[in-house]
């Protein structure tokens, strides 16, 4: 895996990521030999962390629906 497009001019360069690098990043792994995308990897970990909290309290209508769901069917 490699990154293409770096020409030494920092963030302004065209930064093309190949599919393998993209999938590594999305899987919360920093691609081997690609330290320059470590910041992106860390950001994705932050983004992933947003879904790790507790569930929001259900609305009154949803609470009612959850509580009013019919009893399990016979035979369970």
């Amino acid at each position, binding site marked *: 895996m490699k990154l293409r497009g770096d020409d030494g001019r920092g963030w302004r360069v065209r930064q093309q990521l190949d599919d393998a690098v993209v999938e590594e990043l999305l899987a919360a792994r920093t691609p081997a030999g690609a330290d320059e995308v470590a*910041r992106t990897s860390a950001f994705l970990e932050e983004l992933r962390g947003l879904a790790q909290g*507790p569930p929001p*309290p259900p609305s009154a209508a949803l609470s009612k629906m959850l509580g009013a*769901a019919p009893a399990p069917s016979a035979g369970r």
Partner: protein
Amino acid sequence: MIEAARRHDPWAFTRLYQSLAPAVDAHLRAQGVREAEDVTSHVFLAVLSGCSSLHGDETQFRRWVFTIAHRRIVDSRRSDGRRPNVGSLAASGPAVPPGRSPAAEDDALRDLGTERVCRLLSALSTDQRCVLALRVVADLSVEDVAIALDKPPGAVKALQRRALAALRRRLSQEGDDGEAQG
């Protein structure tokens, strides 16, 4: 669990809500949906009313839930008629369940993190942000995102590639600015 939910087993509904609601809520917030908690409840009301007719495994169920969430996002954008409110995630922060009070320091640190996430996400287009959140927050595959958004898999791949490239540029800029100030 999915089979039990189809039979309207309350235990199964509660478990599904506990396992999927945090990701649905985070996805809605990442898209700038106002009152994401309320919309999350609307999503799960739709799930409850429709799951008895759903056929498929847990992966398909998860995709279906996020497809419903995506429709709610589209509805929200239409009714708002504006760009996503990227500050909503940071403004609301993660919900705290009744009876639980995490330390104020933990809350403050978490809010700082979500503010930064929102600011960086605002650099992306609506489609890029949506694809990225569905891949990362909802943990859907390219194929599942394609079905949820009704786009070809190739288009999803292109959007996620451009999203990551834009983020990389933004993060590099942020790093350069930090070094210049230091």
